[in-house]
């Protein structure tokens, strides 16, 4: 016996239509949504929700004074774990009101991968993430201009050692290869070695005023950008076919005008928000998985004046994004797993001790935030998964989803049991799947969960206990690892 009474009215007809699509949108443009949030998104409608997401600046951010009061060590963060913790806390804290702000910061952190393994100055790294929050949805040109002035990036790629009489080409090369154009597209190279050298010359004198990494005796103070005109090579340069006495901003202007840059940005956005694509180093000779989608994004890149928000508006409203085949097509990154779970269960929305241990789950799942494995960033998609990280994912999610002390889980339980009717096994499983974000299980997996719930109910288990166990089991499925 799997159903002892009629199913509770979990979803209205409208919610059942819009809910799955909006849950998909929020998994990609944010870190998922709680059932109450999904209700409000359904009321707002898809198009209005997209606009709401695209403008996080209209809503208040976190209460910085409260964060500072309780997490006093964050103001001048002094260790890599603390920086990771703060990043997870902020992403979770903003996941309700400003989800896309956090998601775009995570996106650019993956593209412009900078790491504490070398930078060794946590607050300076955290300031870079804040810069992504502030500029990540705006003009790509402005974003690159900020990136070129970012002290963590300058130190990461040695531009503080890039002098007019002794070029260090590290930043100039990666700016072209990994941050804006890529080595090539459609089988052709996008730039030459001479372009790398000339770009490096344009950025001579772009440095920082302090690279002290010692925290003793006074604690740490974030580094600052400094332009040293005396160390800048102001001679004529030829870059991507144009000649002039270019400074760094001129090089960025030229870069942003290139079709290769439109392609590069579009593929990155598609890879992060739509579906896993080929690894970046393969892009020169591997065409996009969806050329029409990329062409649409490239067109919007130029039409909007390199505006990321405009590109995302096109993307979120495109059929290729909304289609059912796009849903659950990406492997969640560890940060999506951890932050998405914390947001769903409602934990750490106000400071309390213990956030470090939770945040470190990202590291255990192979994403050591603020410390990517290299300047290439993390390899995504199926490469997130190995036997160790899979165990971490399942254990973490199952523990959190099965904990009724969490307000978000309490809310799910109460919602499912609110009607007072007797709940059948299928009602419980389907209700949990819906409230976890309209998760879709393979038929055999769903049937197994229904059978297990039925057995528990027949054995006299309380509905709440069956619900909690079902939540744990859903969190343990293969399907739950996809966004």
């Amino acid at each position, binding site marked *: 016996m799997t159903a002892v009474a009629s199913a509770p009215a979990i979803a209205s007809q409208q919610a059942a239509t819009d809910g799955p699509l909006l849950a998909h949108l929020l998994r990609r443009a944010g870190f998922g949504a709680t059932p109450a949030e999904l209700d409000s998104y359904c009321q707002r409608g898809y198009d209005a929700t997209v606009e709401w997401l695209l403008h996080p600046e209209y809503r208040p951010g976190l209460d910085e004074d409260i964060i500072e009061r309780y997490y006093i060590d964050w103001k001048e963060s002094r260790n890599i774990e603390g920086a990771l913790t703060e990043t997870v806390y902020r992403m979770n804290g903003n996941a309700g009101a400003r989800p896309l702000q956090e998601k775009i910061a995570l996106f650019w952190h993956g593209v412009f991968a900078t790491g504490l393994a070398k930078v060794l100055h946590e607050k300076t790294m955290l300031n870079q993430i804040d810069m992504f929050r502030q500029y990540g949805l705006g003009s790509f040109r402005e974003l690159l201009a900020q990136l070129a002035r970012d002290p963590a990036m300058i130190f990461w790629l040695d531009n503080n050692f890039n002098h007019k009489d002794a070029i260090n080409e590290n930043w100039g090369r990666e700016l072209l290869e990994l941050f804006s154009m890529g080595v090539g597209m459609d089988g052709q190279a996008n730039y030459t070695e001479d372009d790398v050298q000339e770009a490096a010359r344009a950025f001579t004198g772009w440095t920082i005023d302090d*690279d002290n990494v010692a925290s003793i005796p006074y604690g740490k103070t974030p580094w600052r950008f400094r332009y040293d005109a005396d160390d800048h090579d102001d001679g004529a340069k030829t870059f991507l076919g144009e000649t002039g006495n270019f400074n760094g901003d001129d090089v960025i202007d030229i870069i942003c005008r290139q079709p290769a840059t439109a392609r590069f940005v579009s593929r990155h956005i598609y890879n992060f928000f739509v579906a896993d694509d080929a690894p970046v180093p393969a892009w020169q000779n591997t065409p996009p998985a969806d050329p029409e989608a990329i062409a649409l994004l490239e067109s919007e890149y130029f039409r909007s004046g390199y505006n990321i928000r405009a590109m995302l508006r096109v993307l979120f409203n495109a059929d290729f994004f909304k289609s059912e085949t796009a849903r659950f097509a990406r492997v969640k990154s560890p940060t999506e797993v951890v932050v998405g779970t914390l947001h769903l269960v409602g934990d750490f929305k106000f400071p309390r001790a213990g956030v470090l241990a939770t945040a470190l789950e990202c590291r255990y799942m192979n994403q050591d935030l603020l410390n990517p494995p290299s300047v290439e960033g993390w390899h995504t998609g199926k490469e997130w998964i190995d036997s160790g990280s899979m165990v971490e994912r399942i254990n973490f999610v199952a523990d959190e989803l099965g904990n009724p002390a969490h307000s978000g889980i309490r809310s799910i339980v109460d919602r499912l049991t609110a009607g007072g009717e007797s709940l059948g096994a299928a009602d419980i499983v389907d209700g949990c799947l819906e409230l976890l974000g309209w998760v879709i299980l393979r038929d055999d997996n769903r049937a197994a969960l229904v059978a297990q719930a039925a057995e528990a109910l027949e054995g006299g288990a309380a509905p709440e206990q069956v619900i909690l166990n079902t939540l744990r089991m859903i969190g343990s499925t293969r399907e739950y690892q996809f966004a």
Partner: protein
Amino acid sequence: MTTVVEYPLSVAGLYQYHDVIGLLSGGGPGFSGPVSVALGPDGLLHVASRANPNQPEAVRVSRCTVGGDFVGEFCGWGEAPGQFIWVTAIAFGPDGNLYLADENTHRISKFTAEGRFLGCWGEFGAGPGQLNRPSGMAFAPDGTLLVVDSLNDRVQRFTAGGNLLAAWGESGAGPGEFDMPWGVAVDAGGAVYVSDWRNDRVQKFDAGGGFIAEFDGRDGGDGLARPNGLAVDGDGRIYVCDWMNDRVQVMSASGRVIDTLIGHSGTSKWARTFLDANPDIEEKLNAAAQNIELKRRFYRPTAVAVSDDGLVFVADCYRHRVQIYRRA
């Protein structure tokens, strides 16, 4: 001719920079995010470090002379009796023992001045006598203990053993109401001052909790911004850590701002020893203009204590030191 540089005066000239104790350290001589400072009956300065969860051993109470000689420390990161994680305040009772508030376990622990654990009381909740993130503490002249029960937006008065005697306050911004209060001090007459943190003011009450006045510091220019640590000296002067303005406001008993301390730190003995052994770091610190402010000024002063002989001890939290002023 270097007197002005070495012994600078406060804004109104009523106080003179005297000395500094500290450097960032997870153990031994040094502090890590000092949040409270108290003078023990043995004349030693006791400084509570909040530190961070990566350095549990750095969450501790350090003991040193007023002259900056390290004497010892005690710690015990955890939730068991005698341990603490989120220390917020320390205060000495008339029994000579040190009382410590931990807003993680919501309880008050008692230690000897040397750090031997004697007992603890307090439990989480919003009922009478229960606590939700105790922050400031101060002993009244009658030996009772005032505890700021921060997330319950109230002040509770206990016996030193933890028996509830009285409570006042509720959430809000009106007279006698609080929004996440933090610090507390009591003057010689028993009047109670509470830093009403998110209302950016200090409120003054009579010993029974009756509202007397509120001070927002606006007569001195910018008003208070998230005030926390408080102290009152023998003349009734009120010292307010004006946390987000990175200064200490000194007020008359009527709440008028009469002086401002901004931090004039020199190099502490402990820091001098470290820098002498690491000249490369000192060279980098001296190379960047921004570090001049770093070395001298307050950065989130969190607690203040005054001695009978006119010394003012300010826990300069994010610079991991205690700056000392003397009444001029």
